[in-house]
């Protein structure tokens, strides 16, 4: 009796295992688990069998998601949106082949890296103040008001400074609930850099960084977390990349620029901000910490605009040793070339700024300086450009 029942159980178990294996195998051959391969990837053809990992910035994630879905049939690159600080940590600890961050490496981070790190700006975007106030589809902000909201000194939506900036808008008598990033974030870096520019009090008391002690508010993980939280929570204010606000359907405000205009962020006015700020960019192997395109001078420029970066090691075999294959090195370099050239065509539709030709040229020089085993890395993309 007992033995019989045990056997029956064995049969059930075996049957379940067999069914699962058949489904998975069938699915595998039917291509269920492959990435979508509908888009062409331009002229580049990555070598097969050298999938690479990248991690970091959530600001640029929607664009990276598009890139990794398209490039090389969608199976060559695996990008995880874990936050810019994580991107820097991961590349420093060699757990990924490229890191992405909206904050450049600081001096301590450059010193901590096990090899020469190259900085490759791969896109630019605007960080926007998102809010959730019922019946208020548009709001004006300026630097000083944003600073005071994030300091907690303006804590009600109908406070005088906000009313002054928004004549005729019926602002509710409700406490402002401030939202910031809980994880180390390049978006926080851009935001706090802007607040520091606008207020010396903020600069000295809180300062700028990927993780700072905000005087008030609650933290949410990632751009997506902040946008999602503000979207469903009344009376909140937060800051995210433009894509998250537009694609997520979250209201965001106009920001006063140095030329004296209230500007609602868009691809065009972040692109013109990048152009007008005209930053002098260091060499790829240089120190990028003080590069800033905030508060561009043009009349229509959106003031909270920033470049976002990819970090890679110059001497790939020297840093990764045997844990990185030649094929992976080729995929990495190939992907980088593709990203700064063909890949830029996906930027605008996702509300990111396509890189101007000058930065693309500088990036190509930087990518060209990467080596594996002491010599330049062969690739299919670089030669075609």
């Amino acid at each position, binding site marked *: 009796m007992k033995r019989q029942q045990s056997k029956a159980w064995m049969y059930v178990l075996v049957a379940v295992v067999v069914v699962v294996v058949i489904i998975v195998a069938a699915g595998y051959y039917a291509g269920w688990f492959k990435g979508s391969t509908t888009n062409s990837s331009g002229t580049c053809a990555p070598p097969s069998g050298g*999938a690479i990992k990248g*991690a970091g910035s959530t600001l640029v994630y929607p664009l990276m998601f598009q890139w990794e*879905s398209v490039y090389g049939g969608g199976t060559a690159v*695996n990008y*995880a949106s874990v936050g810019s600080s994580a991107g820097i940590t*991961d590349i420093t600890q*060699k757990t990924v082949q490229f890191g992405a961050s909206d904050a450049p490496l600081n001096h301590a981070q450059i010193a901590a890296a096990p090899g020469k790190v190259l900085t490759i700006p791969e896109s630019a975007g605007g960080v926007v103040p998102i809010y959730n106030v019922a019946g208020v589809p548009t709001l004006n902000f300026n630097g000083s008001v944003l600073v005071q909201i994030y300091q907690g000194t303006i804590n009600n939506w109908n406070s005088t400074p906000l009313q002054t900036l928004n004549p005729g808008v019926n602002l509710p008598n409700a406490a402002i609930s401030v939202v910031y990033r809980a994880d180390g974030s390049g978006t926080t870096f851009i935001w706090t850099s802007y607040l520091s520019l606008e207020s010396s009090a903020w600069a000295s008391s809180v300062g700028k960084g990927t993780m700072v002690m905000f005087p008030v508010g609650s933290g949410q993980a990632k751009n997506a977390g902040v946008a999602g939280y503000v979207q469903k929570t009344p009376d909140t204010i937060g800051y995210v990349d433009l894509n998250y606000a537009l*694609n*997520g359907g979250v209201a965001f405000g106009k920001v006063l620029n140095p030329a004296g205009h209230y500007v609602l962020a868009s691809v065009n006015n972040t692109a013109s901000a990048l152009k007008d700020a005209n930053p002098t960019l260091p060499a790829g192997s240089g120190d990028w910490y003080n590069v800033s395109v905030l508060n561009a001078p043009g009349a229509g420029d959106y003031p909270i605009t920033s470049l976002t970066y990819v970090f890679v090691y110059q001497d790939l075999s020297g840093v990764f040793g045997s844990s990185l294959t030649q094929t992976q090195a080729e995929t990495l370099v190939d992907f980088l070339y593709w990203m700064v050239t063909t890949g830029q065509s996906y930027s605008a539709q996702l509300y990111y700024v396509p890189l101007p030709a000058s930065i693309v040229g500088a990036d190509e020089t930087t990518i060209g300086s990467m080596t594996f085993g002491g010599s330049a890395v062969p690739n299919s993309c670089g030669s075609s450009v």
Partner: protein
Amino acid sequence: MKFDRSARRKLWSHTMTVLAGLCALVALIPLGSVIYQAVLLGGPVLSLSFLTSNPPLPCTPSVGTSCAVGGIGSAIQGTLVLVGLAAAISVPIGLAAAIFAVEYRGRFLGLAISFTADVLTGVPSIIAGVFIYAYFVIYDPSIVFSALTGSLALSVIMVPIVTRTCEEALRTVPHSLREAALALGIPKWRTTLQIVLMTALPAVLTGILLSVMRASGEAAPLLFTAFGSRLGFQGFNNPINALPLLIYNFAESPYKNWIDLAWGAALILIILILIASVLSRLVVGRMVRRMRGG
């Protein structure tokens, strides 16, 4: 007077019964709410292609546009791979430890193992993730984010559960059975494997099922290991997605299609786990009845 007092006592007794019943009722509200919400929001997105295709680009439909719905195929596959490998690692270890603790009991070591496993089941699951991450960052950074480390982190959670549940299963086997087998001259190892283990097999399988269930719902240990991926399984040294990880990543987002996907994934996960849970309880119940019935 006396009558009155007894009536009051009866009334009090009934009141307390109702109060205790209310406790049970209130305790059930969250379960009802969770399931209601998951069915309400996750139900509409379920379809065959939802179970097989990969996550879409993030998007929220505005007037005149629509978003790709996509699916959770890669996450389902990832969970199968992760939990499968984790089971392959933890079942032999856990079962061996359980056999040692039961069949070689009386020795201090057996008791120690049993107690340790018991305490280990209470170690927060995120610590398992931290442990594997912190170890592999030093040992081999190139595979920190991979299916392998994800499975290892899940095994850390599964081993003590398998040990404890299998231990209990083996304990339900009457001692007379062992003695009879040994008296027939059957060696101890064959007695254990062919008689004790086979007798306890349904309960052992239930224990393994419990640990698999627990592991398939865990996101915390996978945050720093499996890493997540759009794609399905791409080798054990590459990142992989899992249902709980997908839910965490998509739940907080503002994108309509990702939130829908997360509710669908939550519903699938709940269905799978409830089926497994009810199944295991039925089996255990039958086991217990059978043992009691002799």
